[in-house]
Structures are given as C-alpha cells and as structure tokens.
C-alpha cells in the first residue's frame, strides 16, 4: 500500500464512533471481544464486525494468550496518520503564532495611518 492508501484505510476505520470508542478502550490496554462488547448496547457479532475493519486497517492485532484472544492496539498507522495531519497543522500554527504577536502589537499601539473601516 502507498502512504495515501494506508492513510485512507486508517481514516475510514476512524470515521465510525463505535470504532473510535473501541480504540480509545484499547489504548488503555488489551481486551477480549467480550470485554470490548460490554460497554456497548450492541451484539458481540456487531462488535466483531467493527473489529474486523480495525484489523484490516492494521489498527489492532489479535494476540494469542491461551484460550483468550485479546485485541491490542497497533500504534504505527495512527502515528503515521497523526504525523501527516500534525505537520500540516504545525505549518498553520506557526503562522497563527506570528499573528498572535502582531495582534498584541496592533492592540497596544494602533497604527498611525488611518485604518479603513468597512
């Protein structure tokens, strides 16, 4: 998969509130399907469907632990998606930080030239 395809899979998986809630739960530590089903008003098969989408996107993996087969969060795709947006965000944040300073300056000392009001 190309980077954009990986990002697509990640964002598609993240587009659903139940799947985000499952990831938020798994961010606290691994959990079985039964444990993941508990907080939701949803059947275990319905939760399993969401888990399949998350697994296909590489966001979770199934670990073997005796009879239990807990799911664990896989951080790399999320980190990649986050970095992708985060770098872009930082471009804007740098500009707006500079604008913060300019606005402080403008409010402390209004420009002498007449500002055009609309």
């Amino acid at each position, binding site marked *: 998969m190309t980077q954009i395809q990986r990002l697509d899979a990640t964002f598609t998986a993240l587009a659903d509130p139940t799947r985000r809630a499952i990831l938020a739960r798994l961010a606290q530590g691994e959990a079985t399907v039964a444990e993941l089903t508990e907080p939701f008003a949803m059947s275990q098969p319905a939760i399993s469907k969401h888990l399949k989408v998350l697994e296909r996107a590489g966001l979770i993996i199934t670990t073997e632990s005796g009879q239990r087969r807990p799911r664990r969060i896989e951080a790399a795709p999320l980190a990649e998606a986050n970095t992708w947006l985060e*770098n872009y965000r930082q471009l804007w944040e740098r500009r707006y930080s500079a604008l913060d300073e300019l606005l402080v300056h403008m409010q402390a000392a209004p420009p002498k030239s007449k500002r055009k009001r609309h």
Partner: protein
Amino acid sequence: MPATRLNKTAQVSLPTDTEVRITRDLAAPRQLVWDAHTIPALIQRWMSGMPGWSMPVCEMDVRPGGKYRWRWRSDETGAGFGFFGEFKEVDAPVTMMQEEYFDPGDSGDITGAMPVNNPSLNRSTFTETKGVTTVVVLLDYGSKAARDAAVSTGMTDGMEISYKSLDAILVEQQGG
C-alpha cells in the same frame, strides 16, 4: 455556558474527502483580525512564518472579482513560490472566499507535492465572542487527490513519529 475558552492551538480536520478545515482562536476583536488578513503590510508580518523565508510580494485587491498575489522567497537561495487568485465573495469583516492557484515558481522540491493548475476554493470566516475571534478556514481542493497532496506538503523527511497524540487525532476526527 461558561466564558468562552480561548483555544490557542490550530485545529485541523478533514470534514469531507475534498476539504481541509483549520480553526484557530485569536485574542483580538474581529475588525483587527480582518485587517491582519486583508492589509498587505500586516499580512507580510505574519504570513512569512517559515524560518529562512520572507514574503516580498503581497498584493491584495479585496473586493469581489479583485485579484491577489503572494510570493515567498528563500533568504539562502533566492528561489521563490507563491499563491495567486481572485476574490469571489467579500463581506467585511465576516467572510471572504477566494479561488486560489499555487505558483510553484523556481522553488523545486520544497513544495513538490502541491497541486498546480488545480485551484482551491478558500473560505475564511471570522466570528467574535467576548473579544475572541475564531477564524475558520475551509479549503476545498475539488478532489481527494489534490487535497491529500496539499496536506502532504506538511510532510518532511525524517520527521519523528509521535505516538503520544492518539487522543488528539481521535478528538479531531470526532470534531470533524
């Protein structure tokens, strides 16, 4: 509702497949924020935000049908790139919309991924609550490929991958 909390961190979300939305609070009245977005001498003081770059060209004719042109220049190499376009809608100090083109200039790889000959529709909206102005910038690239390419210009090689921001991206996605 409690007093408006100042969200002094730019938020980025992807509301649709073709759009990016950037939101930021600024501690100033709306008219000042509008001036800072429309008066060339003011724009040049904050839009040249990249270290090692200046913004020698900033021309603005802020009215429907009016043109604008921005150009940045590398201090080190003298190479430049920019944006230009036309205002489609201007309602001071509330909102403006431009059709914007990317001008790759002679900057080479620095802006490699930016789509060329593929205008975006950029809408900026300014709302003021208790002296805090919220800027919402909505960029519509018309296609997912162009949107993704534009957002990818933020990528730099060797960027350290951060694992700690899982919460941030989940919140952003929920907000989007």
